[in-house]
């Protein structure tokens, strides 16, 4: 589903990703771990098409399409979703209004008619309930006045409504207490599906106790330096990253 080959990315002339290779087949959950500054968030942003990053080499294909040639909205239309590390507050635009615009944007990209308003509201209400989100948050401006946990849950809620094929979770666990973490993870697990893949970017293995990955990758100095089964995350938790970095150096 997602194939990244030799990806090289710069920010302000400074190389951040230096030849990254990654293959995520459909239906799998891949975790990306790594020390601070290793390029984890850059990878998440580049996949979603955030401006400000210069791709200097390599390729990213999503279901065979050149992802890097698409605008952020086209990538969403193709089925890519990024759950932000810091979800953005948008004053004056209510949550459900934004979601409807998003869903219709995606449907338009796929040549589908706009969604029926009643049907949309029913879907949305069912999904708020499933994530334990208060319905009142639907009519509040996007993320404004939300607690940290509510913001992260709102990201997962948006994901559940937009039903992406590839969900990139950028440090979704940061700033969450253990209860909020469990709720967010349950939300993600409910969406696991043979046709849907997840790329879970995280600093701590704690999240992976709840969202169990198929493969764990270690990203350091802009490259994947090691990949392994779930147990790799536990080893990293116990031993840190230094032994790996030394082995590479």
């Amino acid at each position, binding site marked *: 589903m997602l194939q990244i080959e030799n990806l090289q990315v710069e920010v302000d002339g400074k190389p951040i990703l230096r030849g990254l290779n990654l293959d995520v087949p459909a239906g799998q959950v891949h975790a990306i771990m790594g020390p601070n500054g290793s390029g984890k968030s850059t990878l998440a942003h580049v996949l979603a098409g955030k401006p400000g990053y210069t791709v200097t080499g390599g390729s990213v294909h999503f279901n065979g399409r050149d992802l890097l040639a698409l605008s952020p909205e086209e990538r969403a239309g193709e089925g890519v*979703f990024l759950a932000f590390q810091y979800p953005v*507050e948008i004053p*004056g635009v209510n949550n459900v209004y*934004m979601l409807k615009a*998003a869903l219709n*944007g995606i449907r338009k990209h796929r040549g589908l008619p706009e969604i029926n308003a009643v049907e949309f509201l029913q879907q949305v209400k069912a999904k708020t309930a499933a994530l334990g989100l208060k319905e009142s948050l639907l009519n509040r401006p996007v993320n404004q006045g939300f607690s940290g946990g509510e913001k992260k849950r709102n990201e997962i809620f948006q994901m559940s409504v*937009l039903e992406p094929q590839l969900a990139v979770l950028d440090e979704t666990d940061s700033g969450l207490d253990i209860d909020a973490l469990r709720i967010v993870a349950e939300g993600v697990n409910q969406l696991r599906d043979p046709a849907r893949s997840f790329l879970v970017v995280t600093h701590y293995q704690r999240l992976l106790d709840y969202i169990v990955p198929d493969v764990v990758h270690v990203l350091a100095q802009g490259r994947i330096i090691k990949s392994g089964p779930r147990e790799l995350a536990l080893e990293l938790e116990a031993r840190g990253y230094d032994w790996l970095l030394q082995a590479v150096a």
Partner: protein
Amino acid sequence: MDWLAALSREFAPDAAAPYAELRQAALRRVGARGLPTPREEAWKYTDLKPYDGAADAARSQAQPSPLALLETGGPQLVFVDGVLDAARSSLSALPAGVRVRTLSQVLREEPDAIAQAMARYTAEDAQIFAALNAACARDGAVVELAAGATLAQPLVVAFLNTAAATRLFTLPLVVVKAGAQSALSLLELHYGAAGATNHSNALCDIEADTGSRVEHYRLQAEASGAVHIGNLRLGIGRDARVASHSLAFGGRLARLDINAELTAPGGEVVLNGLFQAGAGQHIDHQTRIDHAAPHTTSHELYKGLAGGDGRGVFRGQVLVRKRAQKIAARQASHNLLLSPLAEIDTKPELEIYADDVTCAHGATVGQLDDTALFYLRSRGIAEAEARALLVFGFTQEVVEQVAFEPLRNWLAETLAGSADVPLPERVEVAS
């Protein structure tokens, strides 16, 4: 073009009519003074040269039409090119204690009903355009509410301008007297059809007596070839509350001066504003809130948008006099530039002479937040729509304060469509 000659020719005060002497003297003073120049603080950012320049009717575009607001079935007075359109006006449903007359009728029947306003604006220190209006206005509306009277459904006073106008100037005058404990909602509408090149000089004077409630909406949607200069005065008595919403979208040159006078304890004023200056437009608001009495409150929120090479100006003066203890004043001016060529100047001016007061103010000029734009796009919303959504969101704080639903809906539609206007190409400066 000599604007004063045109004005004097079209609107020479009739020597036999009421207030002839006052009006002639006011017009002479205006003529002797001449137009203000940018050297004067109040006109620093607004050059009045277009006032004297020729307009291009072919390029005068209309704003989205607000004429549906004249179909709500409520009481209304409609003027077209300065003349009453009786067929579209309807005052049959006015409740007891509410009296609405045209200015021309009042001048014929009961000139004393506007004596205070006439004295105020023909005085030597009156602002030049207010004086000009008072000297020359032929028609408009006089609204009087007896003590305790209530007009819940908004009264619409509409001044429509067309390309067929034979006169250059229109001089709408609206005088409102809200008696003690009365309640009034009023929409003052200025609209220009495509091709209109009118010079509007509008004056509105609202006097709110003890305990009264006034909701005043002012929608300025002149055509893009028009010049619109307005003056609004709010006199706010004991325990009275006046909210005035200025929604300004039209004109190549548009200016509104608001003077709110809190003259007795318990008075409260809300100034709520939204302006949008597109390509070729200059929209200027100058507001002045005078806390002349203790225990008075003011809330002011202005939001400005400028696109193309549009230019916006906001100057917010708040004066707290020495005797005005225990007052609260809050002012905010937030502005958004939608193109690299747009400009907005905002200038809060607080003058505080009392020591036991609560005052707060804030002013910002910014651009659409790139992170927010990316957030929306990453959800599948196309860039143009995402921009429109952010602009719409930016204005909501002002729009939500508009209680008159048809107007609020019109605003929402107009604003949702507004950022679709293509932005000019980014100018590359060769190094």
